[in-house]
């Protein structure tokens, strides 16, 4: 393409035929300019002592002060650690559960049972975090929750306020996240499995391989590739906390912050309190930049391993 002469290219540029294309692209182009590109410009607030009255063009620039302030608090370390650690565990747990379930589901003799189960597994994926928070509270509520009721039945006092017990939350959040998202991944892996040519299995069966041997030597190797690609891809999102999970499911309970506060909840609270807009923006910029660098690295790695799976 590049070798093509400039003059020929110029001739192609303004064609009457193309006018409808400009018109069709226009709404999306304008919308993204307004709601994606303008906010990128708004990131200058990270370098300002933002004043709500004076707004962006009136506020004074303070260089990297906001970042210095952000990283001098213990918050920066806490939210970074929580965001990254939860994401790593989420990725691994969800992958293991989903692969195991998909492998078993694929082997079931009754296709109808497998379909019905898959339908159930996928259901929580369509619930909002607002609903999931209520589901969780049905178990953990102090006065009526199922867990405390069961503790009473077992002879305990049963008046535990679970929303003030940080020690249970890391495990709980991993479980809730898996409950919500594993079904989706199971469906993905099942789709990969069903794409494996049936001939492999038939040939193996003729050679006398059991279903287990077939799974081990045909299905798993086929999956391994997809899994490793999707694991690497997942790394690019490792700096993004799931706001709904960490905010609504925990009821935004302050005593849980040491184990539940992630970058996104931190930014949200900063915004809501309107205390220090500059520093909150700085936290956002920190997240965006690290996320961007991660995507570039991940894409580089993926395009080395498998150019077809690369994002760009």
């Amino acid at each position: 393409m590049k070798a093509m002469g400039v003059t020929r290219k110029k001739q192609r540029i303004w064609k009457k035929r193309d006018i409808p294309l400009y018109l069709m692209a226009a709404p999306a182009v304008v919308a993204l300019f307004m709601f994606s590109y303008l906010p990128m410009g708004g990131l200058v607030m990270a370098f300002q002592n933002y004043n709500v009255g004076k707004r962006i063009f009136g506020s004074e620039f303070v260089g990297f002060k906001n970042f210095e302030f952000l990283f001098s608090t213990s918050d920066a370390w806490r939210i970074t650690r929580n965001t990254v650690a939860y994401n790593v565990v989420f990725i691994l747990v969800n992958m293991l559960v989903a692969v195991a379930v998909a492998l078993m589901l694929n082997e079931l003799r009754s296709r109808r049972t497998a379909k019905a189960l898959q339908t159930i597994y996928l259901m929580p994926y369509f619930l909002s975090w607002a609903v999931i928070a209520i589901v969780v509270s049905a178990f953990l509520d102090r006065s009526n929750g199922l867990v405390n009721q069961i503790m009473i039945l077992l002879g305990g006092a049963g008046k535990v306020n679970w929303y003030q017990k940080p020690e249970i939350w890391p495990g709980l959040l991993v479980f809730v996240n898996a409950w919500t998202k594993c079904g989706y991944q199971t469906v993905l892996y099942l789709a990969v499995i069903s794409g494996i040519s049936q001939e492999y299995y038939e040939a193996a069966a003729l050679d006398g391989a059991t279903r287990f041997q077939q799974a081990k030597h045909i299905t798993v190797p086929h999956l391994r590739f997809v899994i490793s690609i999707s694991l690497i891809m997942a790394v690019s999102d490792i700096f993004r906390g799931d706001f709904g999970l960490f905010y609504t499911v925990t009821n935004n309970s302050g005593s849980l912050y040491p184990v539940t506060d992630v970058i996104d909840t931190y930014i949200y609270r900063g915004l809501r309190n309107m205390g220090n807009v500059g520093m909150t923006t700085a936290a956002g910029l920190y997240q965006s930049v690290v996320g961007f660098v991660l995507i570039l690295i991940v894409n580089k790695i993926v395009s080395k391993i498998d150019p077809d799976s690369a994002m760009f």
Partner: protein
Amino acid sequence: MKERRRKKEFNRLNRKWNVIFTLLLVLVGILVAAPMLLILIVSFSSEASIAKVGYSFFPAEWSLEGYRYLLKMGDQLLDSYVFTIFYAVVGTVLSVFVMSMVAYVISVRDFWLHRPLTWYLFFTMLFSGGLVPSYILNVQYLHIDDTIWIFLLPGICSVYNVIILRTFIRTNVPEALLDSAKIDGAGHFMIFFQIVVPLSKAGLATVALFTVVGKWNDWFTGMLYVENPKLIPLQTLLTKLQNSVDYLKQNAGIASTPDGLQLLRTMPKTSLRMACTVAAILPILCAYPFFQRYFVQGLTMGSIKE
């Protein structure tokens, strides 16, 4: 077909393991379904039963109280329902319209801008200004907070969906067909509406379904930007209920009348909340098995390439 089935017959899991796997998977299914079932059961429990045995799979007394009060509480819930349906339907129609058009444009390989345009879209997936600048922009500069525009405009173009649609168009609309239409003198509008849209129905349906679910489930926009009770989506209402039942007292508009005060005092707060939750998820969960095919197709369709 018959031959394949016979072949499959001899190559299946043996019965013993089939039973074990089935049991394990059913157990997982119960683990997944039970929490949702609990909400459903509690919504049908009487307030007295909840006071006695708490939220339980085996309530002491079944009752429709929660739902009866759901109807009485009226205004706010009705407003939220109506608004959520409006948001989901209008938002999705606008969104799919905008996204499918731009998806077609970047699918046209000999359009000289198709590559820069794809990058213009794609870059927003790689880097974003984040929450604070968006908030400041919407509230301090555009002043669209607390209006319907905050629901309709910022999320109108999901680039992820655009890429899915573009891939769908490229794989499902034969190039030969487009070429012959071009030779016959059809313009891009005509090609898009007469050829591309009809041939991409399945892709459009999938994206539309995901968009509808996304908008139906959106609680965040309402929480961040909205005060006007007429513009509070169901899911936001749920989080507000979750945070304080008092919210109703201030906003339902029923507290002003003597009847309303009486109603509030006797209101079955907990089963009402669960009934509200069921009302919010029922449309999605009822529709989903019928559209599952599209959902599954959509979930597995997201390959992003250029």
